[in-house]
């Protein structure tokens, strides 16, 4: 039974391999392979779920490869518990929806076969992260995901900005990955193992320094993957990829991986207050920044992207406050809501051929499926009862509140208070941008002209599926999840739901809705105008990008400029993104290779002499 967990990453991997074969590169075959793979994966995940939930405390380990003893103990295996089972179902279902949807969405795209294979690989990598029993193994999935995101975001490679966005995503997450790699090295060294179970068991006896350093470095990786400040800059640009990919990246994979890692290693993070402080601050900053930027966007997909950044910060904030179940509940709820919103957004974009919100006034009135999906997803995101968002948000806020009270696990009280305040403010701003989105898309009058819901039966059926599936999950999850996912020792047990809290939040959200509705009705104005001149600043995410641009290394800027002027050799110029200084150094080093053997010899002997003298003096 336990070894069946291998199937989860293996099936989509096989689909990716098959899909990469030249013989399978025709559209129908590629679609058949991708869909079969995704369906089987989702089925396996669902089949594995009941037995995992029967006894939520049980961890099923299966170690396939056992590397040599001595210096390096690398165990590769699966670690399948209720957490992995639940997240695997989420990944499997969203991936299936995305694959089905993509068949229609990329109907006229010649590169569909490779795209489908890449999505399969992406799913496989995420599932490997989910079931990995060893940090090194997890790292493999983690890196493959980075690679796939690069390929998929850059899918429209004729478009400059798509290539730029792909390189940017890759480089920025890669910066985080370096931290991650070092963190794994530090923790593995200190604990003598990289096996997740053994590592967690070893947490109490780890030296404090290694614990703090290791967890902080891991946090860097989390920030990269889950798009947290200051490494959040890649996510809004990643919208350059096809819309289903945005759904996949934003809902179930990639960004969820960071949150999943923190949940997976929750006891480790809880053991280091410094790390929790940093995590709490990072989450507080990101959630506010993301929500404000989302409100100010002019572009539908960018709005959703910034919203993802903000909501991820919410989950991480919950985990920082020790609210294990609260964070994971929000992860699930958000995954369904975001998938729904993105797939609906795809329908709208397909109809109006633009991403600009100003061109979309009222379009959803002519598109019932999209409208329904938008309303369900939007209200869930805003946290309005009876949708599950209300419960998940409230439980997150409850966890933050206890952290602010200084009780139980979590960051220091100061950071706790900050986190709680940011959380409260974010609820209201989230309500505001959701209200704005809905007002624009649903406000009368409905536009005239040739506007209809695209005849993508696939897309419609998926949206319908997601709506039903979503609604049921939304209503059922809050009840069941805590009993499914027993919190690890040290974390807050269960979910604190208070009808009072939910009511208060709901009243706040409704007040925001009403205010904006009144405002926009007063003259059919976009609520964003409320921001006045600060809109531009907010839209650019407080100019963090520009700040990076102007920085000494000018990473993103030169990548962008450099990539723009070349074709497929994007990576070539990513070099310059890492730093023109590196290339300049490299050029100046050319002197040492000027071809004269006598200078080689002189440098050689002088080098030896230098070392001889220095060791002779030191000894």
């Amino acid at each position, binding site marked *: 039974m336990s070894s069946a967990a291998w199937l989860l990453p293996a099936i989509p991997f096989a689909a990716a391999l098959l899909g990469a074969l030249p013989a399978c590169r025709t559209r129908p075959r590629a679609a058949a392979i991708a869909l079969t793979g995704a369906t089987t994966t989702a089925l396996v995940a669902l089949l594995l779920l009941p037995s995992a939930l029967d006894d939520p405390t049980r961890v099923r380990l299966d170690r396939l490869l056992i590397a040599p003893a001595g210096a390096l103990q690398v165990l590769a295996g699966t670690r399948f518990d209720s957490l992995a089972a639940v997240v695997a179902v989420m990944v499997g279902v969203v991936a299936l929806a995305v694959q089905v949807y993509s068949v229609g969405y990329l109907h006229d795209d010649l590169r569909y076969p490779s795209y489908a294979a890449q999505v399969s690989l992406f799913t496989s990598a995420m599932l490997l992260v989910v079931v990995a029993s060893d940090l090194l193994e997890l790292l493999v999935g983690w890196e493959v995901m980075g690679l796939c995101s690069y390929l998929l975001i850059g899918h429209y490679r004729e478009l400059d900005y798509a290539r730029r966005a792909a390189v940017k995503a890759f480089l920025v997450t890669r910066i985080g990955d370096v931290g991650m790699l070092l963190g794994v090295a530090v923790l593995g060294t200190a604990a003598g193992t990289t096996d997740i179970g053994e590592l967690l068991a070893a947490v109490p006896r780890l030296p404090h320094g290694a614990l703090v350093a290791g967890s902080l470095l891991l946090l860097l990786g989390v920030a990269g993957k889950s798009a947290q400040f200051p490494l959040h800059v890649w996510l809004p640009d990643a919208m350059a990829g096809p819309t289903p990919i945005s759904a996949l990246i934003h809902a179930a994979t990639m960004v969820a991986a960071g949150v999943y890692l923190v949940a997976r290693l929750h006891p480790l993070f809880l053991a280091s207050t410094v790390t929790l402080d940093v995590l709490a601050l990072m989450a507080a900053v990101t959630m506010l920044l993301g929500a404000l930027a989302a409100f100010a966007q002019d572009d539908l997909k960018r709005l959703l992207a910034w919203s993802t950044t903000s909501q991820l910060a919410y989950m991480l904030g919950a985990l920082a406050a020790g609210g294990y179940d609260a964070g994971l509940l929000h992860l699930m709820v958000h995954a369904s809501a975001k998938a729904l919103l993105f797939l609906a957004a795809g329908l709208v974009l397909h109809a109006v051929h633009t991403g600009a919100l100003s061109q979309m006034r009222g379009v959803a009135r002519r598109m019932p499926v999209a409208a329904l999906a938008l309303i369900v997803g939007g209200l869930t995101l805003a946290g309005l009862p009876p949708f599950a968002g209300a419960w998940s948000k409230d439980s997150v806020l409850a966890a933050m509140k206890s952290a602010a009270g200084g009780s139980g696990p979590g960051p220091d009280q100061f950071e706790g208070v900050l986190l709680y305040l940011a959380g409260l403010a974010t609820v209201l701003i989230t309500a505001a941008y959701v209200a704005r989105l809905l007002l624009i898309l649903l406000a009368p009058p409905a536009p005239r002209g040739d506007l209809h819901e695209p005849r993508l039966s696939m897309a419609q059926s998926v949206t319908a599926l997601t709506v039903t599936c979503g609604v049921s999950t939304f209503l059922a999850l809050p009840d069941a999840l805590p009993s499914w996912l027993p919190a690890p020792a040290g974390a807050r047990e269960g979910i604190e739901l208070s009808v009072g809290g939910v009511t208060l939040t709901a009243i706040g959200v409704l007040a925001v809705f009403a205010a904006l509705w009144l405002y926009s009705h007063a003259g059919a104005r976009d609520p964003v105008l409320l921001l006045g001149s600060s809109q531009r600043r907010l839209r650019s995410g407080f100019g963090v990008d520009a700040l990076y641009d102007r920085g000494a290394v000018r990473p993103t800027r030169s990548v962008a400029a450099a990539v723009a002027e070349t074709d497929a050799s994007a990576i070539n110029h990513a070099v310059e993104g890492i730093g023109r200084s590196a290339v300049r150094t490299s050029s100046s080093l050319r002197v040492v*290779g000027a*071809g*004269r053997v006598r200078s080689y010899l*002189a440098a050689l002997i002088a080098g030896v002499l230098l070392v001889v003298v220095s060791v002779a003096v030191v000894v």
Partner: protein
Amino acid sequence: MHLAVPLVAGALLFGLGIYGVLARKNAVLVLMAVELMLNAVNLNLIAFGAYLRDRFRTGEVTTLFVVTIAAAEVGVGLAIVLLLYRRRESVDLDRATELREEAA
């Protein structure tokens, strides 16, 4: 006998060899300088052998090996120099710079 006498002589030979290797442009002259360096090694080995009275005769045996190594090196080295001369009509090391880092 002062052990320092052959040792210092060896160090001087070694240094002269280094000078020759670095200062000479003619490849054959560089080879001669390398021979000086190897002979400095031999002088060291023989002097230390006399001082240590090693029953395995490590110093002298190693000297014989170094002489053999030097002979093999000279054989191959001169063959390479002749090859270069046939291609370039020159044994000037400073002119053998076709292989180099490209200008940016």
